[in-house]
């Protein structure tokens, strides 16, 4: 990165010219005694003048073009004006928020109050139709994380009120009622929910390990959004192509692969990828109210466990087994004590990988490319390199810009690494935490409030 290559084309003749230049003539006409001290001032003034004139010149050029009179037509021809259809009305955007609020309320009512699986099913079909196929999966709460992050880090960008509400409302509902958003208001969840055919139960270790991916995805999404690099959540949204019924081939492959997978592993995207699910899960763990499997006392019939396709029902704890397995305070303390080690490891890994991660940024990548392969500047088919060369920006400026971005990645990836270390440590700690449970209960973090178990529960009110 420190190495700087001279890629700008130089005007050879100009450099070799021995003839006096008009500019230098002007200079020599000045008093030669205070020439030296004037030089610095001149240099600066020249720079200011140049930038000013540069802005002025681009403006003048376009202004001149516009001022130049059109032909005068004798045949009574009237000039049409270009047609510019307006974007979607703002009122409709607000209407979307209203729909979201209504759907969330309905999902809450259906999951917690009327306890109707069928109701939730119809609600998710509505969501799929409205937010999915009608609104083309955009705007979506999952992607709004990146808009929020970008608005914090990019002074030129401020989030719109609709996006803010799309980000906030599901989290608020999760904090009070559990993940009702996942149950009925998320089009991505709805489409996956409909294809569940023969869900298989994953082993616990696999469930936990795959459950870490959303944290990694979230950390990367925030890192890339904060550095203004990319919106990876939107870029790899597997179903948006299906909602739009028009997409690049690889997007369709991705969507179909997820749906096929979803036939046997219920809602694979929601459980093992969705970064918004991480936030919802945090909220839902402390939710004030939550969907309950039984309306009154549990009769330990275990019917609900077979109904849950997401392995989100916790079994009653068997105290004898716990004692035998040696889980207890001792291991808890050990696992708690090694959390700082996990964090330190995460920071280290983040530090090591920041160079690699920063290459995701187009500016950094271009700078690296032009330094490592200087011959690429002659490749006329390389659009990015040729555009850069034609832009008049110097290699030094590009390198400086890239270095500034890489600095952001340096801090950002260490924070992200530390966060992931903490998550791993806490996940491990969780495996040895002993919580007394007498009944079959939904895991509040993982339960998507789909109310399938409610249907299976034989207990009447």
């Amino acid at each position: 990165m420190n190495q700087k290559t001279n890629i700008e084309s130089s005007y050879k003749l100009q450099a070799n010219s021995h003839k006096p230049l008009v500019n230098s003539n002007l200079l020599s006409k000045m008093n030669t005694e205070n020439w030296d001290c004037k030089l610095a001032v001149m240099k600066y003034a020249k720079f200011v003048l140049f930038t000013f004139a540069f802005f002025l010149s681009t403006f003048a050029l376009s202004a001149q073009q516009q001022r130049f009179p059109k032909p005068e037509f004798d045949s009574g021809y009237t000039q049409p004006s270009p047609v510019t259809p307006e974007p979607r009305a703002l009122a409709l955007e607000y209407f979307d928020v209203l729909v979201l609020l209504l759907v969330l309320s309905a999902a809450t009512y259906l999951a917690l109050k009327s306890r109707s699986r069928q109701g939730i099913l119809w609600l998710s079909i509505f969501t799929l139709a409205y937010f999915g196929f009608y609104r083309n999966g955009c705007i979506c709460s999952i992607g709004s994380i990146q808009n929020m992050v970008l608005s914090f880090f990019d002074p030129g960008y401020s989030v719109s009120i609709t996006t803010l509400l799309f980000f906030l409302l599901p989290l608020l509902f999760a904090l009070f009622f559990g993940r009702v958003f996942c149950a009925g208001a998320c089009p991505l969840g709805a489409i996956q929910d409909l294809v569940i055919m023969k869900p298989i139960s994953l082993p616990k270790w696999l469930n936990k390990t795959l459950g870490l991916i959303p944290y990694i995805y979230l950390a990367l999404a925030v890192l890339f959004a904060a550095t203004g690099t990319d919106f990876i959540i939107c870029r790899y949204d597997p179903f948006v192509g299906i909602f739009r019924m028009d997409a690049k081939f690889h997007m369709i492959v991705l969507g179909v692969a997820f749906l096929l997978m979803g036939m046997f592993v219920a809602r694979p995207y929601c459980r093992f990828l969705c970064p918004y699910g991480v936030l919802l899960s945090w909220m839902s763990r402390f939710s004030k109210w939550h969907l309950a499997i039984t309306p009154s006392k549990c009769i330990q019939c275990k019917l609900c466990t077979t109904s849950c396709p997401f392995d989100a029902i916790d079994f009653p704890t068997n105290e004898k087994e716990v004692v035998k397995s040696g889980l207890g305070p001792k291991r808890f303390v050990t696992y708690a004590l090694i959390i700082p080690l996990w964090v330190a490891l995460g920071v280290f890994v983040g530090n090591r990988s920041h160079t690699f991660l920063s290459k995701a940024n187009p500016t950094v990548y271009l700078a690296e490319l032009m330094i490592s392969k200087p011959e690429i500047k002659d490749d006329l088919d390389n659009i990015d390199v040729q555009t850069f060369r034609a832009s008049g920006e110097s290699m030094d400026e590009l390198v400086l810009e890239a270095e500034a971005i890489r600095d952001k990645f340096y801090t950002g990836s260490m924070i992200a690494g530390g966060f992931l270390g903490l998550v791993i440590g806490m996940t491990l700690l969780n495996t040895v935490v002993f919580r007394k449970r007498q009944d079959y209960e939904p895991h509040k973090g993982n339960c998507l409030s789909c109310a399938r178990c409610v249907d299976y529960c034989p207990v009447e009110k």
Partner: protein
Amino acid sequence: MKNKGIVIFLIVLAVVIIAVMVGDWYSKRPDRMEANKFEYNIEEFRKVPEELILFKEVKNFRVGFENPAGITSSGDTIYLVGDQKLKAIDIDGQLLLEIDFQDKPTTVEVEGENIYLAFGKSVKVLNRAGEIQDEWNIEGENTYVTAISGKEDFVFVADAGNRKILRYTKNGNLLDSFEGKADADDLHGFIIPSPYFDIDVNEYGDLWAVNPGIHSLEQYTDNGNLREHWQASGAQTENFSGCCNPAHFCFLEDGSFVTSEKGLVRIKIYKSSGEFLGVVAPPTKFDDKIEGQAPDVAVDNKGNIYALDFDRKVLRVFEKN
């Protein structure tokens, strides 16, 4: 294992998902993206055979203008306008004269004892020492003067905005104006789609004007009757490309035309009959920009060609090989 088939199926899907994500991630990088399928390709016209290039660049001067505007020559003195200044230099680049103005001059012409400067809607007349003698205002909302040319008795002013050539006496009386309309079937008067409209008077006192809309050069009598014309349309080296070309032209002593084009920037020479003679500076000599500007051209008494390069802000001198 119970669901062996399903597990294998799932693993395959997981691999597909990862492959698609990683593949997409790496495919959108500058060195892996495909070339422009819809390239507007003029490369073949940028190449000019060596034997057609009759001139070579011998030197160049930084003119010290942020926005150069025009050039003309008189004997061995070169007059340049740009920014809010008029500068006169000798052929070695020594500054002889520098005058500041309130407005931006758009073009300059030297004829006899006078220097004529156009400022959009007016013409200022200066003596050779740079003192203002007279100012002619040209009426009209659309007036935009792009060129001035003089002969012994008259001064012609090209008004691109109104698509007219105005004829003045030396002391500023407007005699008449004409729009170049003629009986000939293939001419329609001046078609000037953008502010490029050059005129010049050659050694024999003939007034020539560019009709940029149809790629032709037309000779008019003093009172605006078309006498002769020639046309060369096309992107090929021997023709004028695109729209509004040639944007600038001037004469060599023998009456040959030195033409300068925008877009596909090049300077060429045509015989007085309009027959293509050769190239002064091929497109490869200029910056490869989307909106390449046509350099303004002038010829000194030694037959050297001066091109004012607006993109590089440099005065470039070409000498016969």
